[in-house]
């Protein structure tokens, strides 16, 4: 009967070991990109083949989801900069600017990219979906200056952008409902631009209808999705390392579920006998 009601502290210890030990050891599991992640990769490759490619990356996540979202941001920025795609970054989440700046500075220095000519950071605007509507009408009107106070019209990477359709791809990194309730209804459906996104694992199931309807051209879901993207880029990072811990922890949870069910059926048999 004890197996039916294991002290939760014992479960916590197993989960802790399942997370900590794999992070300290060096081993790997085979990673293969799923279709939604492959579609994001293919979208960036399509953009890279176009003339003067430029993407808009929207950072819509905060500090609590950094372990899941930041590796994703780094992976797509590496893909963009490695293929000479220019990046314009914005934030629709109040906590995001610090995280966006870190990601942009890190990857730009890795690839020797210059601020202004290769990428720009425009900072945060409140209003959830309202800035999306404004950007669809007139980008310079919606975002007159970058985070450094320079006029967007004076920055080479943004000077020729008139509205969202001038971006070869818009990519949203979402920890909330920004893909489903902001970008798709007020952006994609209204202005018809190419749109793709990345989200936390818990949100990913909600977005499958939009993948099938092609309103969302590919999706990176959670740390596993980020690891798949790192695999496609052949640059293993923190997401790939995190897969060791996540894999072992999932197995531990499954083992506890099976144990609980075995104990449950054994106890039922005893009661029936």
């Amino acid at each position, binding site marked *: 009967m004890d197996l039916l009601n294991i002290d939760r502290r014992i479960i916590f210890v197993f989960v802790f070991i399942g997370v900590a030990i794999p992070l300290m050891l060096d081993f790997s599991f085979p990673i293969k990109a799923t279709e939604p992640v492959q579609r994001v990769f293919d979208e960036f490759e399509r953009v890279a083949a176009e003339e003067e490619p430029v993407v808009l990356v929207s950072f819509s996540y905060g500090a*609590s989801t950094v372990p899941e979202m930041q590796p994703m941001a780094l992976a797509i920025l590496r893909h963009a900069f490695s293929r000479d795609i220019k990046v314009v970054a914005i934030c629709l989440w109040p906590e995001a600017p610090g995280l966006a700046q870190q990601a942009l500075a890190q990857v730009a220095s890795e690839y020797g990219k210059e601020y202004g000519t290769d990428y720009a950071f425009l900072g945060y605007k*409140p209003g959830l979906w*309202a800035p999306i509507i404004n950007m669809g009408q007139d980008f310079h009107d919606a975002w007159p200056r970058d985070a450094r*106070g320079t006029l967007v019209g004076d920055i080479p990477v943004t000077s020729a952008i008139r509205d969202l359709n001038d971006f070869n791809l818009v990519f949203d990194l979402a920890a909330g409902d920004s893909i489903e309730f902001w970008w798709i209804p007020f952006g994609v459906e209204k202005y018809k631009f190419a749109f793709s996104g990345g989200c936390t694992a818990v949100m990913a199931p909600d977005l499958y*209808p939009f993948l099938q309807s092609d309103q969302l051209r590919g999706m990176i879901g959670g740390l596993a999705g980020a690891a798949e993207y790192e695999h496609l880029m052949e640059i293993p990072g923190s997401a790939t390392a995190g897969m060791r811990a996540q894999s072992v922890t999932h197995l531990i*949870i499954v083992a*506890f*579920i099976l144990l*609980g069910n075995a104990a449950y059926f054994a106890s039922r048999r005893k009661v029936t006998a």
Partner: protein
Amino acid sequence: MFLTRTMPTLLAFLFGAVAVMIYYVPHTVAQEIERELSLWLRILYAFAYFLGLYSILNLHWTRISRREGGWAYSGVAIASFLVMFFFVVYNDGAGPFAPQATAGGYQWMFTYIHVACSSTMFSMLAFYIASAAYRTFRARSSDAAILLVAAIILMVGRVPVGRAISEFFPEAAAWLMEVPNLAAKRGIVLGVSLGAIATSLRIIFGIERSYLGGGEE
């Protein structure tokens, strides 16, 4: 009565009806109205932050002044706010009107305290989810058994170890996400959207007025 009931209802009708119509009209005038409305929305959201700030500071200050249980934590919350506020205004020596500095006290606290603490809080969920999964995923009925099997396939199939065990797990997980999950989610989205449209129409036409406070007249 006019200012508390009639006027807000008229404004809700006016802005609700106009906002719905201009969404579908590409005419320049409609676009200009939409631009103005969305700019006002952005301003309102910005002011909502002040309201939120007042609300949270007032809540914690009340707890401290009444010496309620755990009031010391409220003290920490207010002190944290004041320290962070000081460094944001100081802005690494550049002052409050310069663009936000990319280094200095604020950035240090954001990265090494705020991000670390927030991520830790979120990661605690893994422990509670593990405990909750063990207690709740029991095959007590055929429905529960189906849910249990689907959950196990997804948990194993969505991480690389699933592929290491067998190709069956990632393929079955992909099928679960792309077929039953997609169908259910689409149904939920349609249902929720129809409900939202119905509620919006009730608000626009003044049938639903509970948002004004005081319930039905």
